[in-house]
């Protein structure tokens, strides 16, 4: 199984976020807590999809990621775009810095 992390959109501003080890949320995928197998992934989702988390994020789900040069990157292009911003507006989103 591919490595997985939990992503969602933040409730207040809708930005893409990733769950961290302390059950918080970061806008940077590199801060995410990673599941290495299916039971771990299931446990992560259980922590993400709680009533309490609902006040912070919307629609948590698992995405596949890979380690590239020691950094986590999504394997699907859709999720790559969520870590960057629109490819047609590189002045906007996380890629704008």
């Amino acid at each position, binding site marked *: 199984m591919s490595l997985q992390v939990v992503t969602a959109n933040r*409730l207040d*501003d*809708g930005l893409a976020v990733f769950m961290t080890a302390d059950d918080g949320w970061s806008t940077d995928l590199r801060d995410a807590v990673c599941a290495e197998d299916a039971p771990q992934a299931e446990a992560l989702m259980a922590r993400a999809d709680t009533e309490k988390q609902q006040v912070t994020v919307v629609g948590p789900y698992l995405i596949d990621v890979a380690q590239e040069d020691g950094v986590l990157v999504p394997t699907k*292009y859709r999720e790559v775009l969520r870590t960057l911003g629109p*490819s047609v507006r590189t002045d*906007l989103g996380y890629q704008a810095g």
Partner: protein
Amino acid sequence: MYRYDDFDRQLLAERTAQFRDQVARRISGELTEDQFKPLRLMNGVYLQLHAYMLRVAVPYGTMNGEQMRKLGYIARTYDKGYGHFTTRQNIQYNWPKLNEIPDALADLATVEMHAIQTSGNCIRNTTTDQYAGAAADEIEDPRPYCELIRQWSTFHPEFTYLPRKFKIAVTGSPNDRAAVRVHDIGLRMHKNDAGETGFEVIVGGGLGRTPFVGKTVRDFIGKNDLFSYLEAILRVYNRFGRRDNKYKARIKILVHEVGVDEIRRLVEEEWSKIRDGSLRVSDDEIAQYIAQFAPPAFEELQANDPEFERRKQAHPDFAAWVRSNVIAHKQPGYAIANISLKPIGGIPGDATADQMELVGDLADQYSFGDVRVTHEQNLVLPHVKKADLFALWAELNSALLATANLGFVTDIIACPGLDYCALATARSIPLSQRISERFGDLERQYDIGELKIKISGCINACGHHHVGHIGILGLDKRGKEFYQITLGGDASQDASIGKIAGAGFSEAEVVDAIEALITRYIDIRTVGERFIDTYRRVGMDPFKEVLYGDR
């Protein structure tokens, strides 16, 4: 244009306050996302890949200058300085914060705008001909009927939870610029043998994963009976439309499954019960709405303006813009000026806050405060004196709004695609940009002639690819974007659904494939033939040959 009465204003104020409370309750945790989602969708708020999206209605695509400026203000204040005009004649903002959206809606309400009927399984914002009230070929201005449809359908208690969304389009001209044959209901105005104006009623058209050209359920319905007839159709749909499968829930599937004759029988039966009820609209009432859309105070002018002709001679860029973007007006001495939101290599339909504010000002200065949004993602100033066209063009040109490409190969419809949309399977915008750059040379575009390229980033077909002369559908093939080409689609009065040419193309190959199709068209066209005409004459094979050879 229509101005709100006290009832409209109260309705909007109450709705905005209601949504403000709903947002507060969601943020506090009192409402779960499952409870909140249908509420936010009824107020035009979606959640996309990067952020929330707010879709604001532009009823039947008509605005005044102040409203257009307000759209610019919203873009600057609550978004990142731009907005995206859509194929529903609406505008979308891509980055609003949830807790600020109630303020944005309150600001919009000050200019009689809102996000009602832009989402959810209700009757959506009605669309129409962007040249309504100005076109030389028009029978009558369709907007009074669109406004009556708006009033009938807004928060209609019976039709708030339809099986699926429902879109109505109206054309007042025999030359259909509103794609009425690919809507849930299309209304085509025409005159009957007695010389009365009424509507052909077309039902069950649509795009998406199962495209259909609509079928005529009634050749003619008089103006007074239109609304009870619409109600009868919606009742039949609401009762018999499928709720078991989201993908089979649109009325087009019902019409396809039971047949148009049975639909007609059911509608007529229902209509016979309600036709003389409260939805029968009197001539007096209709006259009141027609008066709301009375033509502006046109001056009596000569058809031709000598200074305008001289300017064209002296300024080839202006002449090119007039040739492609300026259309005949019914009033002598006036013209319809189209503002292309398709700069070469730009993002189709995007406009900056500054551009929106400028267009609002130019509408006030040159077009009786009237501005339109087109379903092809452009803007229109519908009533410009020919004598003012040069000054207007100069201002547009300085704001990168004078691209002279209306209806040509670079005037591409593209949905937001995977750059923004959570449903998309591939990107649309970068492909439209690359095609635009490839064919950017104006002389080449004019040589190619009218050519409608439409691009969707998923099977839901928001980019209308099924009715593109050349349609492009972006899909995901094992994690890579690839693009399927359809040929022979048409959204006009001669509506047709395009046919798939064959296997799809990679992102790297697809622009070359489009160029090969266009080159083949140029090689085999006869004099005066548009791409679609040639396709209809020769069929798919000559085009398939250049795409696939012996494959």
